[in-house]
């Protein structure tokens, strides 16, 4: 690596690719650049390490997502007795192309943009690239994912100044673009369960009584005063299934257990804010309880009890991995409580009372992203006013 270095310095024949070299060097090694003047204390906890921790926290979700994609598929073709390993392999082969597309497109744009502006390449896309495959329904065509990723990286991130400057969560913008551009591919029965074979694996006819709708999808079309939720093979499912995660849904969002493991990793390492996470769940619980206190057949989601509200759909995933994004969220301590709580409230509010959207977590986080600077501003100016008032009374 060091032998190659002179080629990339100004004047070298590959000088235009300096930021690519620089990016690879700091990604693979610890660069030996040191501060030139004065005394500095550097914390080893740089952007790279923060990002890697989030990726590690996502791994349980990712691994379970692979297994669950296979499980849902084999249940759908009536071969529920296929081995765990077969299911995992099927899911791996189904999810891998999405991961490759997400990283390929996103990092490609970041590299090109860094070359144009002669800036360092930032590691910001490491997490985004992993989040995208986990929140995009598995049946979404790859070219759609590629377009949405490119759109999100350019218009939600690069035009705002790159990593750390974006107003909105890039992964959620990707999903929102897909959701509004190709609604038929992003919701309904055909989006969330892989029904065709992958690289020749898992070929089979769909069983009678197959339903590809997610629990929340079924809730949205529920008629009457009682809910009856079923899995892909028409067997009833309950809260326990939603907690473990063997239900239909976007790859990463189904398993509450894996999300909680991820949350634990984020909290122990101090990467994510516990205030946001806690208040988001509190907000969801409060709104869920409020909706459940006035159940009505017009809004079937109000029939779900509050704890189950948190387990179904993408709520928990959004609260743990999306709301806690330090760039797009509120920074002040008091602001984080308000920000998280409102995400929880709005997510359930949209889910229950807007029949157009069976799930509201994505829209709730994006909406609060827009309000985060305002919340911070109010908290800061309130604090200033409070302290000014303290000096006046004396």
């Amino acid at each position, binding site marked *: 690596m060091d032998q190659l270095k002179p080629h990339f310095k100004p004047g070298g024949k590959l000088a235009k690719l300096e930021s690519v070299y620089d990016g690879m060097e700091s990604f693979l090694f610890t660069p030996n650049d040191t501060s030139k003047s004065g005394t500095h204390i550097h914390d080893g906890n740089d952007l790279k390490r923060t990002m890697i921790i989030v990726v590690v926290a996502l791994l349980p979700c990712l691994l379970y997502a692979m297994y669950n994609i296979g499980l849902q598929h084999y249940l759908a073709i009536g071969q529920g007795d296929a081995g765990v390993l077969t299911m995992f392999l099927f899911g791996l082969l189904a999810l891998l192309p999405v991961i490759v597309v997400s990283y390929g497109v996103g990092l490609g744009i970041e590299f090109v943009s860094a070359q144009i502006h002669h800036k360092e390449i930032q590691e910001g896309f490491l997490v985004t690239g992993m989040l995208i495959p986990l929140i995009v329904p598995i049946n979404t065509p790859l070219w759609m994912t590629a377009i949405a990723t490119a759109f999100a990286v350019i218009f939600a991130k690069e035009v705002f100044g790159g990593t750390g400057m974006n107003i909105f969560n890039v992964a959620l913008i990707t999903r929102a673009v897909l959701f509004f*551009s190709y609604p038929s591919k992003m919701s309904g029965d055909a989006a969330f369960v892989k029904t065709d074979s992958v690289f020749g694996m898992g070929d089979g006819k769909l069983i009678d009584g197959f339903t590809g709708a997610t629990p929340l999808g079924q809730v949205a079309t529920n008629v009457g005063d009682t809910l009856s939720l079923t899995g892909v093979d028409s067997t009833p499912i309950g809260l326990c299934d939603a907690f473990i995660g063997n239900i239909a849904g976007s790859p990463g969002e189904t398993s509450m257990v894996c999300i909680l493991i991820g949350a634990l990793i984020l909290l122990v390492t101090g990467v994510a804010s516990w205030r946001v996470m806690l208040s988001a769940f509190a907000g969801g619980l409060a709104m869920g309880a409020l909706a459940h206190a006035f159940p009505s057949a017009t809004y079937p989601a109000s029939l779900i009890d509050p704890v189950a509200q948190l387990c179904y759909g993408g709520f928990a995933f959004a609260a743990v991995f999306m709301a806690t994004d330090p760039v797009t969220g509120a920074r002040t301590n008091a602001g984080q409580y308000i920000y998280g709580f409102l995400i929880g409230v709005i997510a359930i509010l949209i889910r229950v009372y807007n029949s157009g959207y069976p799930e509201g977590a994505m829209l709730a986080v994006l909406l609060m992203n827009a309000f985060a600077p305002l919340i911070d501003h109010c908290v800061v100016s309130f604090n200033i006013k409070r302290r000014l008032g303290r000096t006046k009374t004396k």
Partner: protein
Amino acid sequence: MISKKNKSALFNPLSQENPVLVQILGICSALAVTANLGPALVMGLSVIVVLAFSNVIISLMRKTIPTTIRIIVQLVVVAALVIIVQQFLIAFSYDVSKQLSVFVGLIITNCILMGRLEAFALNNRPWPSFLDGVGNGLGYTIVLAIVAFFRELLGSGTLLGFQVVPQWCYEHGYENNGLMILPPMALITLACIIWVHRSRNAELQEK
């Protein structure tokens, strides 16, 4: 007839002083009528007609209009012309006038009109004012046409109502982008055009 000053009155608004791209005027209608190319072109044409003739009329009256009530006089002239254009559209192309709905009537509130009347027609002779009106209307129409071109092509797969994206693509999994039909994408498309325009005209970039 075609002096240097007249030429710049006609051609400057196309790019260097484009009312939409540089002065950021008339954005509202640019968002509203650009989902399809046909209505966008009709809208552009209507604005050219109204702008050119209101410029001429105001320019003819410029010495008799008392300064204190000039805005009201301008509004009356513009409103009269807008109503003529609107009735013309209803009479000769009813479907397009239905698609444009209130936005032809709302030409009267288009900031480009008041801007040109105030800035140009009140201080210039009728012929240059006419050219200025045509030029600014064309500048507006060009931008509308570009935005509508991309929105209709990507959003509906058609241009002027004719199918452009071949059936073969749909059979192989291509789908129209529903987001392009929604107003936010008009704003983003417009932003992209401004982006390209600014990067080609460095002197317009704000520091």
